[in-house]
Structures are given as structure tokens and as C-alpha cells.
């Protein structure tokens, strides 16, 4: 799956995007966030405040952490938006 990052989350994790091989146990968005927390200090710090991190799956906002990941090609992580 392709993971992309924006704003201060991109800066904190020091990457704009990456291709990852997810463990088979990662089935939902909640699982993906839990998995991200295991990837080192920077990830733990970013994903600790779960509700601050907003998620889009294949370019659509998803709030529900039980959303299944099957068929999803791209997951994006970003803080609350400040456009306009």
C-alpha cells in the first residue's frame, strides 16, 4: 500500500510517501494506525494523538477506524486542514 503524509506530519516523519508491505493482521484503518505506532519514536509520537491525525483512503476522508482496508491503494495521513 502507498502511504502519503502532509504538513507537520510529513516533516515529523521525514517522508512524503512510501510503499509498504502490511502484515496480514492489518485489516482495518484502526489496525493500520496501531501498526504505524510500532515503527519507531517519530511514528509513535505522531500517531499517539490518534484523533489529531486525519486519514483519507484513496482520496476520500474516512473517520471510522473500523473501515476495512481491502482494495485500498493509497492511505494519506495529515493534520486538520487549514485551506481557504
Amino acid at each position: 500500500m502507498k502511504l502519503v503524509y502532509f504538513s507537520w506530519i510529513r516533516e515529523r516523519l521525514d517522508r512524503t510517501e512510501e510503499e509498504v508491505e502490511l502484515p496480514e493482521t492489518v485489516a482495518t484503518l484502526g489496525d493500520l494506525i496501531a501498526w504505524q505506532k510500532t515503527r519507531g519514536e517519530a511514528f509513535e509520537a505522531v500517531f499517539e494523538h490518534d484523533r489529531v491525525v486525519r486519514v483519507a483512503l484513496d482520496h476520500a476522508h474516512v473517520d471510522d477506524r473500523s473501515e476495512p482496508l481491502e482494495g485500498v491503494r493509497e492511505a494519506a495521513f495529515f493534520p486538520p486542514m487549514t485551506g481557504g
Partner: protein
Amino acid sequence: MKPSGHDLSKLSPKCDIRIQREDFDIAAEITRLTRGRTDTGAVVTFSGLCRDEAGALSALELEHYPGMAEAEIRRIADEAIARWPLTGLTAIHRFGRIRPGENIVLVIAASAHRQAAFDGASFLMDFLKTHAPFWKKEHRADGSEGQWVAAKEEDDDALKRWEERP
């Protein structure tokens, strides 16, 4: 989302969504939206500018999610078109480095009568601020490291007024 219950004998509303680095010309955009039809009686425009506070800001850097920004604004525009009898809707959002006094965003809503145009433009801006994937970073005039602009709670509050409306 498809608008329902609209009279099929009417022209369908024009909808123009653009994400661009370049500036825009407000008068030219109004003309583009209203040209070629005579059923528009009201046009409301909103433009958002880069604002300096006390000379501290040198520029804003607008970051966006290229694959999603246009799709998300289009979803919001489709919702506005489904809720109000609009004859046209334009939304242009810039990205990149923008200096104080320069344009950031433009929304134009056209309708037969003014209330739908006011409401449509206001609705689009409220959702654009909280749902369109853009983030602002400050570049400070003194050269020090700027901050990411924090989201405002009142932006979320602004959404609530649309929950009970038509």
C-alpha cells in the same frame, strides 16, 4: 451526488473547479460563469487573501494533496448544487508561495435569485476550509522558522449551521 427534482428543461449548472499555482482574475471568472445563459440573476463572489499581521509574515506556503484536492472540492460543489438552485459554481484554490495581499481562494455562486447564491457560496467556503486538503505554513519576515497554521474550532462550528438547513 446527483441533484434531484430539478427541472430538466433548464440548463444544467456550470461547475468549474481548479487547483492552480497562478493567480486568478475575479472579473474574468464571473464573465466565464455567466456567459452564454440568461437564467442567472444573482452572482456572489468570495475571495480569500493572504493576510499579514503586524508585518511579521513574509509569505504563506500552501501545501495540498494533488490527487484529492480537486476531487474533494468537487464533492462539496456537487452537494451545493444538489441543495440550492444554482446556475453556476466556480471554486479556484491556489497552492505554493503566496505573499500578503495576494489571492488564495475564489468561490463564485450564481443563481436566479440572491439568497441561493449567498448560501451556496457560504456553504462551499465552510466545507472547503474544513474538508479540502490544504495546509498553510507561515514564512516569517525575520527569517525565523515559521509555524504551521492551526485549524480553528470556529471553522468546525461554522459547519453546524448547515445541518438543519435545506
